């Protein structure tokens, strides 16, 4: 393969390039586009839910379809929108922040993406093949094991496939951060975003296998007649709840921690100050990650675990508020005494603080086990987790996208449109979800297809629906901004924000080997350190030499395609054993591709010094 990036290529060549790429920056694009697409689908489902709940006894969609909507909305947003968008950021930024040329396993990185994408497609195919899963995103047995049709089968297979991809991604980033840091980049000099990705990856590693097992048990029960959740044969339905939440609670920290990291970088950059209490922030991140595993059963206070277990999990859950509080105060004091520049990225971050604080506070209220007997499975909970997930994760994604967009695409998102998108979304968000806390306590359980007239719930629900429309408008403006920027805006330099960390020391978008010479890191905020010493850019840690890069490969795509085909086989062999052919064909493709990968040596290629010197003339070294 030629080292020079081909400039003029047809569409076919470009598609082939993306199908086979192992470059973390292109994989970031893939995650961004597919995650964004699923975010829109999930958003559409949310709008349908809110239209149905606009007025009492509404009949916009049927009860069965409604349950499919809520299930797919939750599943899509968590697994197919938030996770991949976070992976997009991880891929785009982490190798750059630690001064690496790629992740530790570029091939696995690509495999992780394609598994996620095929898993996500599998889930959404269910809409067209007789009905989506309808047992809620938590998929509690035995409602899920007895759900007619194949909807829940799609849930099981889709999440199993995409979950495998996520697990691979998690291990990859762990190794990348441990082994691939540039000289001088000690752990305690890593940017907070990289730190939080490190902790998140650990959580992925230890949380996802529990879901894998849960999904296997569910798959065996539904497809092969086992009796894990069949009380008639001695099964126990509570096992699913435990396995699901042993995964599910860390999952919410998997979602929020990387954005905590992104906010830390953004607050610091746009206040022109180093992060206040860096070590405390690192410690808090690790502590949140650790405690995240100790509290899963707070989702199960009403299951009947008894007062001792309920009390223990209640107190453990409250403890998480302490490190979270530490973070909030450290962010505030990062801005204290700074020069706050109100860019769009900063605006989303500023909005995050009160929104997330409210979400955290209702979280502590929910942690009070007894009081949860009133909150549990009501709109109070719906309000709470949208405050943390939208107010935290989605605000964070918007902030991070505005912040790193120039690094990913070489252009700054239009600031005017950025702020124009912010206000309707921000106002709509509070309109939609604040009132839901009260709706819940006034007697509106969660996942209700209709609510009755005369229960005092009409006004609140109407307000909530109006808010949802405002959020939709905000999203549309953001999309407009993306298109507008790519057509109209001009290219910017590698460092448009006066940045502090390594990613801003190289051109935007970076060349595919990232760093011509690996940089030498001399402190926290390495680029800022050099700037304060009056230098332009980083000091290299190595002489200019050949760069070893991995080869592109189609195998990740074929491995994932195989699981996709086998997934359909597993689902439909229940009806007709002919489908076992699909199982064997799919598994054959997957295992065959893996065997090919194993047997065929792939030693990568080199970019030669002469080519690099050419690139430096064009500005790659900077």
């Amino acid at each position, binding site marked *: 393969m030629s080292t020079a990036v081909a400039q003029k290529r047809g569409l076919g060549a470009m598609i082939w390039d993306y199908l086979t790429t192992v470059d973390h920056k292109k994989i970031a694009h893939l995650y961004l586009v597919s995650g964004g697409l699923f975010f829109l689908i999930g958003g559409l489902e949310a709008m349908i839910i809110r239209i149905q709940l606009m007025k009492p006894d509404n009949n916009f969609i049927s009860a069965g379809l409604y349950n499919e909507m809520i299930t797919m909305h939750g599943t899509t947003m968590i697994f197919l929108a938030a996770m991949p968008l976070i992976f997009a950021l991880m891929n785009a930024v982490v190798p750059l922040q630690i001064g690496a040329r790629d992740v530790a396993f570029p091939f696995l990185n690509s495999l992780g993406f394609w598994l996620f994408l095929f898993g996500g497609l599998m889930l959404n195919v269910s809409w067209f093949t007789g009905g989506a899963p309808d047992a809620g995103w938590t998929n509690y047995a035995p*409602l899920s094991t007895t759900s007619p049709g194949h909807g829940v089968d799609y849930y099981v297979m889709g999440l199993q496939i995409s979950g495998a991809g996520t697990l691979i991604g998690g291990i990859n980033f762990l190794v990348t951060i441990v082994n691939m840091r540039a000289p001088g980049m000690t752990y305690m000099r890593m940017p907070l975003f990289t730190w939080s990705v490190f902790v998140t990856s650990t959580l992925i590693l230890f949380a996802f296998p529990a879901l894998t097992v849960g999904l296997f048990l569910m798959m065996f029960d539904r497809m092969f007649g086992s009796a894990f959740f069949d009380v008639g044969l001695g099964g126990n339905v509570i096992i699913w709840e435990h396995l699901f939440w042993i995964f599910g609670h860390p999952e919410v920290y998997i979602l929020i921690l990387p954005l905590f990291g992104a906010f830390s970088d953004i607050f610091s950059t746009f206040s022109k100050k180093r992060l206040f209490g860096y070590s405390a922030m690192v410690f808090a991140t690790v502590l949140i990650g650790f405690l995240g595993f100790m509290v899963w059963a707070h989702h199960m206070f009403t299951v009947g675990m008894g007062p001792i277990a309920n009390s223990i999990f209640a107190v453990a859950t409250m403890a998480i508020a302490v490190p979270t509080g530490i973070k909030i105060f450290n962010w505030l004091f990062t801005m204290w005494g700074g020069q706050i520049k109100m860019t769009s990225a900063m605006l989303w971050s500023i909005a995050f603080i009160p929104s997330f604080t409210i979400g955290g506070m209702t979280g502590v209220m929910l942690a009070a086990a007894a009081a949860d*007997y009133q909150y549990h499975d009501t709109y109070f909970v719906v309000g709470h987790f949208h405050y943390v997930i939208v107010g935290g994760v989605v605000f964070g994604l918007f902030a991070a996208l505005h912040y790193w967009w120039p690094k990913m695409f070489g252009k700054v998102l239009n600031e005017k449109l950025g702020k124009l998108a912010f206000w309707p979304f921000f106002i709509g968000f509070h309109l939609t979800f604040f009132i839901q806390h009260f709706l819940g306590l006034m007697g509106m359980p969660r996942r209700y297809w209709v609510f009755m007239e005369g*229960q005092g719930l009409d006004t609140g629900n109407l307000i909530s629906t109006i808010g949802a429309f405002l959020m939709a408008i905000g999203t549309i403006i953001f999309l407009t901004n993306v298109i507008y920027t790519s057509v109209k805006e001009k290219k910017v330099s590698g460092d448009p924000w006066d940045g502090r960390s390594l990613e801003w020391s190289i051109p935007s978008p970076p060349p595919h080997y990232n760093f011509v010479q690996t940089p030498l890191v001399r402190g926290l905020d390495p680029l800022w350190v050099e700037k304060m010493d009056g230098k332009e850019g980083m000091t290299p840690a190595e002489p200019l030499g050949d760069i070893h890069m991995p080869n592109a490969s189609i195998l990740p795509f074929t491995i994932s395609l195989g699981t996709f085909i086998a997934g359909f086989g597993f689902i439909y062999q229940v009806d007709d054993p002919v489908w076992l052919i699909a199982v064997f064909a799919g598994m054959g493709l997957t295992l065959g591709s893996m065997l090919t990968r194993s047997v065929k040596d792939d030693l990568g290629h080199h970019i030669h010094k002469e080519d690099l010197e050419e690139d430096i003339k064009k500005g790659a070294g900077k």
Partner: protein
Amino acid sequence: MRGWMGKFRSLFLFGALTMLLTGCGIENISALKPKGYGSELLFDLMLISIAIMIFVFVIVMAIYAFVLLRYREKKGQEHIVPKQTEGNKALEVIWTVIPIILLLVLAIPTVQATFDLADQSTQGDEGVITIDVTGNQYWWQFDYSDEEISTSQELYIPTNERVYLNMKSSDVIHSFWVPAIAGKMDTNPGENMNTMYLEAYEEGVYEGFCAELCGPSHSLMYFKVVAVSPDKYDQWVEDMKNIDPEATPETASAQEGQELFNNNCMSCHAIGGASAGVGPNLGNFGNREKIAGILEPSKENLVDWIVHPDEVKPGNSMPSELVTEEEAGKIADYLLELKHSDVGTELPVQNAEE
């Protein structure tokens, strides 16, 4: 003001909060208008947590507002480089220790309330009522095993007494929730039986909900808790014990309806006596607040429900068009005549208020 928090409520903050929150929702539905021991205990716990949280929020917002107003970059300041502070140990300790103390303040009553609500010390004592609650797709069965009576959709309890509920499910997981009287508890299939108790302070008809997704008609699985004075409760038990399913109805249409009911419906349903089989026990049906938990009690609605149950409650297991509309009319006449006990009928239905 019977809760242990009662004496603190006069404090200004709690007073204001209480007034603000109790403005929300409708009597006998809302958890913010507690009418029973459990709900009051939990309402107090909510007030404490909200008060602590508002305290924290005000502090955060004060710093937040100050920072944003004071430290915005002004025109011409772009070149200024602020001091790069590393952090402050004293501050870190302060915002670690104070939240811990606040959480301890919340944790103690939380643990107390959790144990209080799990208390089962008097269950099984002489004169203490235990009712078996069974969640079904999409209706509730209540068995008074000591009295050998069984009802569905309407749970009668005496006021100011602890009534224990032994809860399980016949199919999927449901959750039993009467916000105005107590918190909720899941009903699980299999061997995971749960126990909770209700204690209502006032007579009334309280709205109950299923709070765990249980299928398409999850949102239609309402029930009522009818709390009446102990004397009236005894009367009701007496009435229910004396139900004679063979009693001849008054009108001719109802008599035909009885015949049709016995031939078509009795394989699942029952009228009076102990626990029914597959379907709800329809004793005292004529005095129900609602048909199937959701429809106003009229003949037209009942006929609709009997002939097209799947349109009223999607996914329920009552067969459609088992009888013709004409036959259903006669059955409806019969069922609406089944008024075995008028205890509780004088209580106002909460939906009529406001």
